[in-house]
């Protein structure tokens, strides 16, 4: 299966699951595929998720970023960006513009059968947990479980 065939299939799944806001698109000037869509949380806040599809997808795990808001302000006015790689906040290294990277899948458990609808679900859950963090001050891992090692 070629990358294009795979991404066509991914879009069918995303459409089927009511996630048309996260359809994969092609950026011609940069010659890459990406997802850039909004998530409106149950709490009424809006976030923009950005994900560049890696060249070696689905072998490679896609990186998911919080495009907006940036910075992402957490409890007590502390930016989530400042945590960078944080187990307790389920974040990885920020991108070059400082956007927060969501840790959505343990690398050792990633495989090519995992589809983007599941990745987006994980990202949406992270935002729900983030809002629980905002309300309580507790770290995000108090609200989402950590994926076990393979």
């Amino acid at each position, binding site marked *: 299966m070629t990358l294009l065939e795979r991404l066509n299939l991914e879009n069918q799944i995303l459409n089927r699951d009511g996630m048309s806001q996260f359809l994969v698109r092609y950026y011609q000037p940069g010659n890459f595929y990406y997802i850039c869509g909004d998530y409106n949380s149950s709490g009424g806040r809006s976030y923009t998720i950005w994900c560049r599809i890696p060249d070696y997808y689905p072998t490679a795990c896609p990186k998911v970023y919080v495009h907006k808001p940036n910075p992402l302000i957490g409890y007590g006015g502390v930016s989530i960006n400042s945590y960078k790689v944080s187990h307790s906040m389920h974040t990885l290294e920020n991108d070059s513009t400082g956007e927060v990277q969501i840790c959505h899948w343990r690398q050792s458990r990633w495989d090519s059968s995992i589809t983007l609808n599941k990745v987006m679900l994980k990202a949406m859950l992270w935002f729900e947990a983030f809002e629980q963090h905002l309300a309580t001050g507790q770290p995000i891992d108090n*609200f989402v479980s950590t994926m076990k090692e393979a």
Partner: protein
Amino acid sequence: MDSQKEQIREAMQSIAARRQGHNKLVYDRTKKTIVAVSTTDYTTTGLNISAEEADMFYLR
């Protein structure tokens, strides 16, 4: 007899309360957001994310 009935009624209420408190997180395709639903009656309730429930996703 009345005492027994009262005990049974309290036990039933306790079970019902426990069930109501058991939520699953679902992605609502219409609302395009994650909501928590009771596993017993699927009535949308407030979010109640816990570590145990974090991976209990399914699509609604």
